């Protein structure tokens, strides 16, 4: 059953409930775990700080939908404003606005997590059946030809011509209508978000969900969390009300996402004994590159990414390869990102294209012929989530190894776009760098400033702020996803990853949540 904030506010009374498990957050991590635990016969209560919206509320208007399903209405940025923060703020979390890209965690990354970070019990053999189950449940299959818009086709063909490995992106879709409004929430329930997959399963198994309920504090009983107290948010004002929801539970699972989970743990004062809370943060900062073509591209229709360039997923070094948060590697050569076609509707595209006024309008009038690409950078420099006078701050390093990868991603995107037939490549920086010849790529990319505010970088895949590991000095949860030093507090979202998974994280998050669910059940 779903109880929305408005009905709680109308009663004027606080709510107090008991359950076996309280799950904080309803995105990929929380929903998958909730379904698993509820279907095993346990009582589950989910607290979600965002609102409950369904396909009937998804009107495909960019600004309306930013207000409904995006944290901070899409207006939040990292501490120095270098990177825009993208996260879900609604029942279903980021799965409601994501692109439906559904990769298994690459074996090389799982091996790295085992060898470099001591993550045992989460290897390929353990995860393979979970991935198979997820792929069945979410109808994951390689993107079909009919899903590929012209930008997708150009990326596929140009990458092939350059000799780069390009592949169909696995997609979680069923009867996709190809509207191109994935980021505004699927109005057709075709995208297999948590709204139409694990949350309904959890509800059918008896789980309850309170939307507009922001978890604020834990009540402790020694090493156990006895209860979670949440404020009910007034959706119209975005402000917390005086109404509270208190959930008494035998186990508590924090699945508030890569930004929200470390923030919540910090607010409980856990940093004092677990110094890794909020550290080792990553977010896949994403540089975009735009292009003007002679032919119609219509980038806003069909699915965002039917084909992806995997050639550069792993960075190449002369010498030892760099590992997230570790120094002492060889000389960087190239790579360390996935490269995808981009999909933007005119509001967001207008915002990320350079310049303003008449010149900007002239570019926007070429909208059907505008295309572009985006790269998910596999961060190597750790960021941080911290509290400053009670306010959450996110630090994303745009220097060192991250900067090397950003510049190489811009280079490769420009090369790809020219090979795809671009007449002009536009980097979207504040200095409005544009080039019309492939021979100018090196010079142009070298000229791009990485100082704050000069570029538009998105951060769609946050994690790491509650890292998994054996040592409470350097990690937050153990390999059973339990917070060190507690008996019944767990984390089930990308905050536990020791480094970025090097692909879209949704399937990794859900597979890890299945394992966390087993640990939670064992603790009941």
């Amino acid at each position: 059953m779903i109880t929305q904030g408005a009905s709680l506010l109308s009663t004027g009374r606080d709510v107090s409930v008991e359950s076996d498990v309280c799950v904080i957050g309803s995105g990929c991590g929380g929903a998958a775990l909730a379904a698993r635990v509820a279907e095993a016969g346990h009582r589950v209560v989910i607290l979600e700080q965002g609102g409950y919206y369904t396909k009937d509320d998804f009107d495909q208007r960019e600004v309306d939908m930013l207000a409904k399903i995006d944290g901070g209405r899409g207006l939040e940025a990292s501490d120095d404003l270098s990177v825009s923060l993208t996260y879900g703020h609604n029942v279903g979390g980021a799965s409601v606005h994501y692109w439906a890209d559904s990769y298994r965690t690459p074996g090389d990354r799982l091996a790295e997590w085992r060898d470099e970070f001591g993550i045992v019990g989460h290897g390929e053999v353990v995860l393979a059946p979970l991935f198979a189950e997820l792929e069945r449940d979410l109808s994951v299959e390689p993107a079909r030809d009919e899903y590929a818009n012209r930008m997708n086709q150009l990326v596929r063909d140009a990458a092939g011509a350059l000799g780069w490995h390009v592949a169909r992106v696995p997609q979680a879709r069923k009867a996709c209508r190809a509207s191109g409004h994935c980021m505004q929430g699927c109005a057709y329930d075709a995208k297999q978000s948590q709204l139409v997959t694990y949350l309904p399963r959890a509800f059918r198994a008896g789980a309850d969900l309170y939307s507009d309920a922001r978890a604020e504090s834990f009540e402790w009983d020694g090493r156990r969390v006895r209860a979670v107290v949440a404020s009910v948010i007034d959706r119209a004002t975005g402000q917390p009300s005086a109404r509270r929801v208190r959930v008494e539970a035998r186990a508590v699972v924090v699945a508030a996402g890569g930004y929200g989970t470390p923030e919540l743990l910090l607010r409980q004062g856990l940093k004092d004994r677990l110094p890794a809370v909020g550290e080792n943060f990553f977010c896949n900062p994403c540089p975009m590159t735009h292009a003007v073509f002679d032919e119609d591209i219509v980038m806003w229709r069909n699915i965002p990414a039917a084909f992806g360039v995997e050639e550069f997923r792993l960075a190449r070094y002369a010498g030892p390869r760099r590992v997230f948060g570790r120094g002492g590697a060889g000389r960087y050569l190239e790579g360390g990102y996935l490269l995808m076609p981009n999909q933007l509707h005119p509001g967001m595209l207008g915002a990320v294209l350079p310049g303003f006024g008449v010149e900007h309008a002239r570019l926007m009038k070429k909208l059907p012929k505008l295309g572009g690409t985006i790269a998910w950078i596999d961060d190597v420099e750790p960021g941080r989530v911290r509290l400053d006078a009670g306010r959450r701050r996110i630090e994303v390093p745009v220097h060192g190894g991250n900067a090397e990868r950003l510049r190489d991603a811009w280079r490769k995107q420009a090369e790809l776009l020219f090979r795809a037939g671009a007449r002009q490549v536009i980097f979207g920086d504040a200095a409005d760098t544009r080039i019309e010849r492939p021979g100018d790529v090196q010079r142009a990319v070298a000229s791009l400033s990485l100082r704050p505010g000069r570029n538009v970088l998105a951060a769609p895949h946050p994690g790491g702020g509650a890292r998994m590991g054996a040592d409470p000095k350097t990690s937050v949860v153990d390999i059973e996803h339990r917070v060190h030093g507690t008996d019944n507090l767990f984390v089930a979202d990308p905050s536990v990853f020791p480094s970025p998974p090097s692909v879209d994280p949704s399937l990794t998050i859900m597979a890890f949540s299945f394992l966390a669910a087993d640990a939670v059940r064992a603790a009941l």
Partner: protein
Amino acid sequence: MALASRRQFLALGALSSLALGLGGAALRWFRSGYALSAGEVALGLDAKGLCVARAVVDTLAPGDAELPGGVELGVHQRIDEQLFALDEATRRELAAALEVIEHVPPLLGYAGRFTRLPRDARADVMRKLLASRRDLFVQVAAAYKQLVQILYYSDARVYSKIGYDGPWVKEEKPPESAILYARLLEERRRRG
């Protein structure tokens, strides 16, 4: 969307507070001459902020023979709506950014506030901010450039002018915050 450099925004935006400290005359000067036009209502910003936002919109989205101007579309009022719905800290940062834009022209070679300059001069100020070596100036200008442009190009009255066929869902379903804002706006307009 890159927004405010928190501490710096607030520090420079605190020019208002400085004026307060200078006494009533300075305060009157600092906040004078910001008259709202008919139908304009400031709920997320104050009257001064909305006037500066109007000048910023007119500069960044002036329109042309085919495209309507941003002010004509009420983009500055929509900025006010966005700020109305944001948390208090972010709202203060964005309001402070408008203070920076309003009072920065003398540092860039123009005598007078941003709102008093002709459009060409305002455009030059914005270009200089975006090209500045000072992070704060770039951040302030970039934040409003992005905010104005997303609101402007998300307006259905612009779609056909740029070759966009628009959403397939025909009925607009505004968020709760927009419904509340529209109601308050109407009440304030009725009260005059």
